[in-house]
């Protein structure tokens, strides 16, 4: 084989790789678009009027996740599944955003922490790497931490909207999350950095609860509800 033949042959490899990346990039762009649409729907919960509409908004989001699943299904066809990590960087960012959105919608519906399994199911992907396109544990955790910071905003805005009991529930939830994270031996930098931000969210929510309790607002509303 001459040098020229050898290089023509190599060019084949390189072109194929570039084509794959190009394909992936395109699908990822559509995913990002859908993720942004979901975000826009969910962000309305921060508006005073948005609190009553949580159920309808969640329903709307659940529908949009159908689109996400279709798009991810499309993504899966673009590369051999065993090479997940070769192209990981392309979808890592959007996958974390989607994990956050799934976690947020589940929280709004049930006030519970979404499991990795649930996120995987919502996105139509796997938990175990061997079974196919999956959700890396780091990406799941990153999504959860993004939600934590959204929840601290929600605690503040709940009060503005006159809902004085939600912050207490958020506070308990976030504290539990914090304990969970303290079990982890985080090394990898971006996750560690995000986790450091959680401390501020915890503190912020505690101050909201404080403001409510010193004015007797939390209890007041609770007993009003009880009656």
């Amino acid at each position, binding site marked *: 084989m001459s040098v020229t033949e050898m290089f023509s042959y190599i060019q084949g490899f390189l072109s194929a790789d570039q084509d794959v990346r190009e394909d992936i990039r395109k699908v990822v762009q559509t995913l990002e678009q859908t993720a942004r649409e979901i975000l826009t729907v969910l*962000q309305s919960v921060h508006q005073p009027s948005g609190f009553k509409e949580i159920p309808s908004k969640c329903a709307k989001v659940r529908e949009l996740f159908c689109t996400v699943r279709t798009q991810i299904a499309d993504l899966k066809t673009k590369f051999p599944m065993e090479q997940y990590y070769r192209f990981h960087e392309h979808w890592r960012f959007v996958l974390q955003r989607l994990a956050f959105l799934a976690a947020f919608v589940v929280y709004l519906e049930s006030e519970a922490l979404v499991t990795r399994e649930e996120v995987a199911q919502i996105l139509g992907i796997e938990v175990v790497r061997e079974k196919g396109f999956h959700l890396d544990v780091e990406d799941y955790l990153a999504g959860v931490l993004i939600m934590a910071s959204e929840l601290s905003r929600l605690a*503040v805005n709940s009060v503005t909207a006159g809902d004085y009991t939600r912050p207490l529930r958020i506070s308990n939830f976030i504290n539990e999350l914090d304990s969970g994270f303290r079990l982890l031996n985080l090394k990898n930098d971006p996750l560690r950095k995000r986790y450091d931000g959680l401390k501020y969210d915890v503190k912020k929510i505690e101050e909201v609860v404080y403001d409510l309790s010193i*004015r007797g607002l939390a209890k007041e509303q609770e007993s009003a509800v009880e009656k």
Partner: protein
Amino acid sequence: VQERDGSANSSSPVIAAFKVFQQELDTKHDKYERLVKLSRDVTIESKRTIFLLHRVTSVTDPEAILKEAEVKLEGVRQKIGQIAEELRGEDIHQFHRAFTPGIQEFVEAVSFLHYIQHRSLISLEEINARLVFMRAEKGSAEDLPPGAQVLTFQVTPSDYLLGVADLTGELMRMCISSVGNGDIDTPFQLSQFLRQIHDGFSFIGNTGPYEVSKKLHTLRQSLGKVEDACYALKVRGSEIPKHMLADVFSSRSALIDPEEGVI
């Protein structure tokens, strides 16, 4: 004497060609420099207008200030007219980097004034509609066809977005000082408006120009400050029945009036 180059050597076609290049390049560079200078002027006057507008929240007759701001912005508009004059017949993107800081600051100022007057976001079209200039050349004006006397300047969507992104910082400042002035409506209005802008920007996300993504963080911070301010107002106001809230503020003003010694 042997001569290997230089002015004398103008018979060489290469040298002749390069003399043309020299002029073309110098002309372009000089124009660029003039635009940079105009942009700096636009920036400074726009900033001063913004400062002036912040005074509006603490005076009872804001009309005088709004009038003054309009006069200032008319001055800025004239400067932008000079920029447009420089760009006449040029591709504006060729010199964009020279004047983009000034134009962004102008968008910030003009949209701030517009918010104060109309409580809404000025659109790109409205801004551009104001940047139509009539050419006021002495004497030769009547010789020209009517179309040639009109000069327009088009703010790009990017510059508009970047200006609006900075506007949010000013709105945040305005919100905080409204609270400080005992104004309890403005903060809630502002928080809704800022949330809408924020949601708009996050809808655009990373599809916009790179500089916009960079400003998203600051925008989020500003929104957070405004939301916190509304929260604090709500929490404090919660301690008395709602209908008494306005009374409290007006009585407070009454309370401090005598001490101020003015009016």
